């Protein structure tokens, strides 16, 4: 390392602020170069001369007391603010609690909508039909057998379609009770799964687009068309059930 480089780094060396490699280089240079080592010694003696204790200004005895006094005064004036802040906190917390309580009460008291009730009922019916070995009253894959079977048992004639060419084969029909009235239940099969399609007349003459709900893992699709309610329930995936609905609607 040259004298010039050394000179520029000497202060850093004195203050132990250089990395190891440079420190070692300077150390080596100082051993060889008299001029630079005098410079270094001068820096050392300057440090010794400057950092004497006798040059240090120690805080006068009263200063700490004085500062503490000023601080405590400051704290007293400051402490008024936190009280206000705490009050606001309290008010905010109370509001939040009221909101939470109200929300849960409303949630608890809120009656499920007619649609949700119907879906719940349809799912129960579907589960029961699979449980008690009462899936069908009339067991036939022939729509011309199933449809006449309902005549005389219901005050309406449900439309019966065989969809086996689209992968949903008609298995049979059954009488059921839903939405406070007797309904026709048509049973379709998709692989190992059954679809209950409940059909009953719509009181008003409104058509509403399909609503999809999921209850207890069952998918429920409900729609109204041509003065009839249709409600399909099954454990097959929502997209498959939608496909079933599409096929049915396209008839």
């Amino acid at each position, binding site marked *: 390392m040259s004298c010039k480089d050394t000179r520029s780094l000497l*202060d850093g060396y004195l*203050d132990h602020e250089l990395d190891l490699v440079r420190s070692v280089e300077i150390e080596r240079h100082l051993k060889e170069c008299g001029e630079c080592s*005098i410079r270094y010694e*001068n820096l050392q003696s300057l440090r010794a001369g400057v950092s004497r204790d006798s040059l240090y*200004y120690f805080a006068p005895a009263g200063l700490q007391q*004085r*500062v503490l006094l000023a601080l405590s005064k400051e*704290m007293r004036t400051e402490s008024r603010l936190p009280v206000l802040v705490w009050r606001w906190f309290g008010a905010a917390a109370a509001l939040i609690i009221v909101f939470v309580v109200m929300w849960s009460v409303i949630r608890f008291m809120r009656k499920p909508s007619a649609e949700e009730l119907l879906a719940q009922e349809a799912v129960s019916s579907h589960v029961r039909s699979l449980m008690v070995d009462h899936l069908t009253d009339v067991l036939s894959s022939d729509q011309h057998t199933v449809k006449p079977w309902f005549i005389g048992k219901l005050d309406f004639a449900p439309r019966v379609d065989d969809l086996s060419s689209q992968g949903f084969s008609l298995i049979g029909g059954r009488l059921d009770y839903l939405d406070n009235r007797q309904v026709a239940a048509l049973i379709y099969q998709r692989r190992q799964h059954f679809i209950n399609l409940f059909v009953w007349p719509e009181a008003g003459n409104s058509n509403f687009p399909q609503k999809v709900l999921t209850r207890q893992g069952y998918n429920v699709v409900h729609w109204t068309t041509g003065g009839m309610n249709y409600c399909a329930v099954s454990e097959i995936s929502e997209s498959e059930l939608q496909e079933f609905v599409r096929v049915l609607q396209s008839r």
Partner: protein
Amino acid sequence: MNAAYNLARWLTGNETDAEDVVQEACLRAFRFLDGFRGGDCRAWLLTIVRNTCYTWLQQNRSSQLTAISDERAEQFEAADSNPEKLFLQQLDDRLIRKAIADLPIEFREAVILREFEGLSYKEIADVADVPIGTVMSRLARARRRLQQILSSGKSKEVRA
């Protein structure tokens, strides 16, 4: 407390002002306790003391705050060839004190923080809010300057 007072005393140049500055700085520190982002509490307090000093100087002695021009800084650089041995041990406190007090304030604070408080370059850089490189060159220049003043002061003393 001593460190705060020492820095304030060196920067303001007199006792009453130093005490006022320390008190003000402590109050500020208390108010801005939120601003303390961990690390060395002493360096943080010294930063506040330093800034309080500067505010105080700006209000009362704005002439002392004129930033050192490069030209003036250059003067301290010159005459560095042919070093002679320096003997400061026997030097009077008064002479050294005056030499430090005569340094421009940026140099003075670097010397005080380094030699009295033992702060690292990084810490000084944080306190003075300048890059580490600037700290290094300020310290180096301050030391050249002190060496010059003290060696000439000594020769004057010897002659007298």
